[in-house]
């Protein structure tokens, strides 16, 4: 899916826990996430801590879209 969307020339960032899979499916911008059942959250710190964590991850993803890359780049 990643590649097909990027083929339209739209930058796409893949937020995924298993970065090796992201690479295998052809993502160029990758943000590693927390865990498979909750990639952008962490129930064990539910509350403001979790919100801050999610914001951090999403900001990283947004910034990656504004960052020129030439090859697979992991934003961690």
């Amino acid at each position, binding site marked *: 899916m*990643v590649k097909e969307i990027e083929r339209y020339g739209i930058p796409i960032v893949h937020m995924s826990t*298993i970065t090796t899979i992201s690479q295998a*499916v052809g993502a160029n911008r990758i943000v590693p996430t927390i865990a498979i059942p909750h990639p952008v959250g962490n129930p064990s710190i539910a509350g403001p801590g979790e919100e801050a964590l999610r914001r951090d991850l999403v900001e990283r993803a947004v910034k990656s879209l504004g960052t020129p890359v030439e090859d697979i780049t992991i934003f961690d």
Partner: protein
Amino acid sequence: MSYRIVTNNPSVRENFQDSKLIFIDGSYEDVLIKVRDLVHSGVELIDSPLGASIRMLLSPYRSILVGTERQAMNMDQILLIEQSILNYRTLTQRRKSEPQHANDYAVVDKELLKASIQAYEDMNCQTHSKFTGGEFLETRA
């Protein structure tokens, strides 16, 4: 050195202590899925999930060794088990079950398990596996 056996083989259930077993009342694929869930939660995958012969891939029973403790998630092991499930489905999609041979499959599965446990105990080490075999194809995402 501790392990648990994820199995749907009744003959394995009869021959091993309950504390060693995660018994699945289901199919070979259900065993793989249980192993997948465990690996995702950080449990070590000790055995390769699929057998070494096409014949045993058609077995109704499967027993797989996993670790006992949750550790850091191992991406390569996750890839391996995920890919194994996909391969398993491809390989068995055309096959019928062979209830007449269930007992034989149970015996061979149990014997292969014993060999695997022996190999694991022989190894006498506690390092965590870092499987970096091939680059598994993945269809996720």
